[in-house]
């Protein structure tokens, strides 16, 4: 197609700028790239009319300096704000086949807006070893740590790693038993660490963690939980909470004393009556079939305690898993980001 020369130059300039915009961190780009392109277009129109080609060259020299400087700034800020750990965890996406399904997995954790550190942890395992995948399936774990002096971070890190290790090492038990056992095993080192601190005279060590773990295997979902982190399933446009929270507010909602909306602002909403770090831990298990097109969501209360289930459904329904986790976290932060926010989204489709 033949354009008049000035349009061709403008198109080339715009393409070049659009290309440069890719250098910005992803979250920044998704939020502002289209606006920046509009600004570029406006500025281009103005200088062309006023100063012609010379104006365009001046514009490019200004915008290029701005580009180099702000790309560096945004990357440094991104790194500082989300920390190294988030970098390693964020945006990890896997496409893997289990026997019947292809799984599209995305996971992300964010410090939120009010906390000084991120005590959440998460792990997604889709074994590359086909044999292991066939026998044990894919595993997803989310944990919300508690306790001062970095204890919360350690507790949640221990939880997700140990659940993974114990689950895949257990080749004797069936899947639901192995999953419950893995969480009970993961409790032991946290409980022992608390005992060790008590023995050293520290009165209230209080290291603990929630744990929610889900296994997808042969068209079945096995979900196990302790505390108030959750598993949801989106099926045919309907969002359903699979796990049942071990929290005071969940009991009050069940007994009809408060509404789910009131639970989000209840002064005791953080009170949970089961967590890892105790001498004994009881693990609940939920089993249900999954179908092609279903989406699995695991999250901490920094997400589901902050945004409404309807918002959660709308986002996961509208976007693919990678976009979903970004939007979910952005949404929780828009609501003030009172706590760390963590989400794993897994879409199940035909192999």
């Amino acid at each position, binding site marked *: 197609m033949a354009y008049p020369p000035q349009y061709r130059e403008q198109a080339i300039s715009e393409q070049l700028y659009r290309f440069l915009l890719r250098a910005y961190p992803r979250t920044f780009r998704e939020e502002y790239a289209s606006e920046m392109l509009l*600004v570029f277009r*406006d500025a281009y129109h103005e200088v062309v009319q006023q100063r012609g080609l010379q104006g365009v060259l001046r514009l490019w020299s200004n915008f290029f300096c*701005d580009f180099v400087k702000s790309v560096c700034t945004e990357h440094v800020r991104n790194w500082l704000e989300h920390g190294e750990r988030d970098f390693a965890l964020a945006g990890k996406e896997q496409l893997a086949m289990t026997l019947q399904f292809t799984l599209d997995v995305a996971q992300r954790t964010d410090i939120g807006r009010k906390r000084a550190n991120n005590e959440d942890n998460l792990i997604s395992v889709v074994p590359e070893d086909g044999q292991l995948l066939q026998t044990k399936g894919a595993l997803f774990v989310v944990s919300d740590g508690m306790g001062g002096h970095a204890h919360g971070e350690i507790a949640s890190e221990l939880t997700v790693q140990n659940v993974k290790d114990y689950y895949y090492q257990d080749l004797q038990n069936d899947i639901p038993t192995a999953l419950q056992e893995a969480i009970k095993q993961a409790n032991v080192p946290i409980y022992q660490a608390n005992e060790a601190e008590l023995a050293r005279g520290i009165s209230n060590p209080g290291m603990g963690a929630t744990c929610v773990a889900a296994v997808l295997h042969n068209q079945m979902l096995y979900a196990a939980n302790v505390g108030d982190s959750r598993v949801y399933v989106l099926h045919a446009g309907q969002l359903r909470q699979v796990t049942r929270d071990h929290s005071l507010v969940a009991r009050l909602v069940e007994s009809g004393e408060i509404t789910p909306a009131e639970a989000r602002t209840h002064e005791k909403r953080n009170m949970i009556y089961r967590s890892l770090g105790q001498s004994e831990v009881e693990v609940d298990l939920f089993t249900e079939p999954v179908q092609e097109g279903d989406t699995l969501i695991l999250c901490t209360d920094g997400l589901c305690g902050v945004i409404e289930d309807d918002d959660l459904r709308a986002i996961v329904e509208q976007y693919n898993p990678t976009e979903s986790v970004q939007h979910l976290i952005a949404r929780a932060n828009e609501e003030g980001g009172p706590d760390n926010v963590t989400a794993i989204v897994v879409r199940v489709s035909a192999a």
Partner: protein
Amino acid sequence: MPDDDRRTPEGLLPLTQAVFHILLALADGEKHGYAIMQEVGERTGGAMRMGPGTLYGSIQRMLKDGLIVETREHAEPVHGDERRRYYRLTSFGLRVLQAEARRLEQLVRIAQFKQVLPGFGTMGGA
């Protein structure tokens, strides 16, 4: 929305050049990104050339700090049918702008007092 009104503006000072200029540009009403850039350029006689990266990087942090908000519905798009984002000052943003202006004013007073700048103490005296 962050609970602005309990924070003191001083915690955010000094502002970067870009943030100060953006706040000034929004002091007399909401504007979209390019209008902010234009005003800053004109007001500084072209000395301050803010590019899109600096502009939106600053805007992102100002939104986060609650200095400005995005005003989503805007009746008349300026160019064709493009949906632009407009921004306006929050009351906290205005207080931060005032605090920064006062801080700069104090610096100017000191410069005048030390006779680095004409004004205070030198006017009429010499």
